[in-house]
């Protein structure tokens, strides 16, 4: 495995309650790559992200993420990874800014990191000081993304990151992802919207817990 490989999966199997959510996935993702993960509901996209984040155990096969062998110690990968799941992981009774500040406190980021992340995601003073439970779905998603940005992770794992965002916010998110990869981070995101994949350099499609296709995009430019 090359040293510039961030994700290396070989016949990776994840069984959840006896059901093989991933049934032998093999692929690699290099450092600084932006990869879309497509597939219908229940094909294992979210499980794949949670595996790479060290949140579910590998049942069989091999998985090395950010240099960490997940079979040996999956918890050790977490400092290198930023995960945005289906749910936003926010505390509804805290304000948007308090949520981002809390994550910053956990990872040792500074107050200026928080301010720049909020600004970057277009979260103004009014939204920042509003309770997360009172925000719109899109504003909550932006807040969760701001919390991800302050983590400065080596590998970004995003589950349907465009969901709930308006067109402007989607474009802004694409710029953020492009900037992240330009600065050396690797981004793997799931989507089942074909128009979102257009412009992403590489698309992996899952079907039945296996890789159905792995193609470089020939349409459009970078997102």
């Amino acid at each position, binding site marked *: 495995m090359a040293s510039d490989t961030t994700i290396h999966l070989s016949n990776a199997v994840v069984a*959840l*309650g006896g059901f093989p959510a991933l049934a032998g996935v093999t692929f690699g993702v290099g450092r600084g790559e932006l990869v879309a993960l497509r597939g219908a509901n229940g094909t294992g996209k979210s499980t794949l992200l949670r595996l790479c*984040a060290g*949140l*579910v*155990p590998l049942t069989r096969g091999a998985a090395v993420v950010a240099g960490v062998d997940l079979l040996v110690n999956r*918890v050790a990968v*977490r*400092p290198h*990874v*930023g*995960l945005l*799941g*289906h*749910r*936003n*992981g*926010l*505390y*509804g*009774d*805290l304000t948007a800014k*308090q949520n981002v500040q*809390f*994550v910053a*406190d*956990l*990872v040792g980021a500074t107050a200026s990191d928080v301010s720049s992340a909020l600004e970057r995601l277009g979260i103004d003073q009014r939204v920042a000081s509003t*309770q997360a439970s009172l925000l719109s779905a899109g504003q909550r998603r932006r807040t969760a993304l701001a*919390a991800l940005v302050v*983590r400065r992770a080596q590998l970004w794992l995003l589950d349907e990151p465009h969901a709930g965002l308006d067109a402007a916010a989607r474009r802004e998110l694409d710029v953020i992802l492009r900037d992240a990869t330009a600065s050396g981070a690797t981004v793997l995101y799931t989507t089942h919207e074909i128009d979102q994949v257009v412009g992403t350099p590489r698309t992996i499609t899952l079907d039945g817990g296996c890789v159905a296709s792995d193609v470089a995009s020939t349409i459009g430019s970078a997102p």
Partner: protein
Amino acid sequence: MNVALSIARKDLQIEWRTRMLLARVVPFALLVMVLFAVALDSEPLVLRAAAGLVWLAMLFSTMLVVQRAFDIETADAAIDTLLACAVHPARVFFGKALALFVQLFALVVVLVTAAIVLYGVTVSGSRVVLLVTVVISATSGLALVGTLYGAVVANMNGRDSLLPLLALPVLAPLLIGASRATEAAFGSQTIDMANGWAWVGLLGVYGIVFGAAGSAAFSPLTESDS
């Protein structure tokens, strides 16, 4: 330790915003104390049982506070944020236990005051020192056990009823120890100060055991296999 303090501060910020303790738990606990007094219907009996009634009300109220403490973690999968940030589980445990301690300490102060006003108990002189020590050590034990068992049931269906079923039997020694030591602090004829301090020793050991067990067990309890 900074991370544990951040987690405690976050929980207390949420409590400050929602006023759950003030709006629901304190009225519930006071109601329990009043109903106990009405049920016993005898001033000498209430006076004798005052210490036990304070700690029974504390135990029931602790269930409400613990459930709330873990509901906020599971409501929007915020616990995943904690895990994904690679926070050491022991720090999460002590951070949440510290926030619980602060809330429960405020509650027990209200309940002891209520016992003085409603039941007519008196505390004076060196008994105040014993009472303060009992309150701190028993509340620590409640917070540690509550955090541990809150994590046990956090991802279970029917956790609202499971928490008291699992935690109350474990809290029985704390209830006995805290009640007996508080009785001594309230000037009961049935137990002297020396015995009261002995019970405080038991509460200290209880807290140390559950602090160690909780910090060790918190990781496997919060880690999901699905």
